[in-house]
């Protein structure tokens, strides 16, 4: 079984394309220009954001 954890964010890789925001079922990600925030209270640890990320900035 996949471990239950929060996604890990590597800001130096992020392209701010918002693909992660698009697939987050919990509306836990917020992107403001060059700032990506994760709301840990909303995050359901599904890790969909880590799969969609085109560059591996979320893993």
């Amino acid at each position, binding site marked *: 079984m996949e471990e239950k954890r929060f996604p890990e964010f590597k800001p130096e890789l992020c*392209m701010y394309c918002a*693909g992660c925001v698009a697939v987050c*079922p919990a509306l836990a990600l917020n992107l403001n220009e060059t700032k990506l925030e994760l709301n840990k209270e909303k995050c359901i640890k599904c890790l969909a954001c880590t*799969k*969609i990320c*085109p*560059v591996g900035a979320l893993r």
Partner: protein
Amino acid sequence: MDFEKEYDIVIAGGGPAGLRTAIKAAEKKLKVLLLEKDQEIGSPVRCGEGLGMGWFNRLGIKPDPQFAVQSIYGAVLYSPKGKKLVVRFDKASGYIIERRIFEKFLAREAASKGATLIAKATVIDVLKEGEQVTGVKFVHAGEEFSVKAKVVVAADGVESTVARKAGLNTTNALYNVDSGYQYEMAGVKFEHPDLIALYFSNKYANRGYLWIFPKGEINGKNYGNVGVGILGSDTKTAKKCLDEWLETQPELKKGSKIIVNAGCIPVGGLLDKMTLNGLIAVGDAAHQVNPIHGGGMGIAMEAADLAVEVIAEAIEKNDLSDEFLSQYTKKWFELRGNKLQSLVKKRKMLEAISDEDFETIVNSLSGEDVLKLAGGDMLESAKVVTKKLMKNPKLATILLKYLK
């Protein structure tokens, strides 16, 4: 800042969907405010930048050479093993456009017709009175503002945060999103500088394809977009797929990477519901994309025209209810959505084809055959398929495998 407290339409997002909404609404003398979160309309680009000729004609857009930079005469398709099929038309079938410039053209047109546009203005919340969306709250250069709207248009791209904050479920299932990565490369030689090149490979582009969209030539060298789109749930990143594939392309990899783009494409999962009381979603926000090739600009602008028609009537009749606005969804499915829905089924069939079977199929087709198949003439298509099947019985086995 110079803007009013109340508008007929407030648009969240200054891409093709939002800008076209602003133009068409301004033409109808509606009071329009468009809010773009980035500091510049037209940038950053998350797009391959191809737009078919049919869209220019349908939408009445003149392909100004300032943005329509390269005429495209067809496509060259590469099989996983590198066999190629050239599909060339006599006349240009589309353009590669510079979206940065294209969107500036649209923005200037909207402003000239009376719309108000503000860059670096991020919608942070939706105002509601009961179940009715009545406006938005936004931040511009650090300052917070509230503005009322009869209808809010959510044209804020694949992330679609505005619609979702208002309560419309536009979340994309991973399976229905492609993950994309692209370089604008310069100083390279493209084999076919007036065709788009599509490379199929389950290894480097699981479900999707790699592409070269040429933009032009300078000093005998070409430049253009080189990218990949893959299944969103693939654990390999799109970047890795593109970089590994480039390693197999000796000529291409010599090129300079002058722009790096990433983005995700909603390639399916059309929405049954695209409206709320006082809100309409348009473009990527409403998943309005061709599920086979992932193109969305033309579809988004066409949907914007429809949205404006419905909104104008809603305002005239003073009925801003979801029930009235939902005519937009119904009309859009009649105009475009039903066709796209049938393409989702075709895509599911295509994505199941193994690289080996793909090779067999490509080996039995000529560029002319593809033209006939793509032309959509049922009789011609049937002729091609029948002729091929008689020549190559293995093809019949393959087709049966994927058609069931």
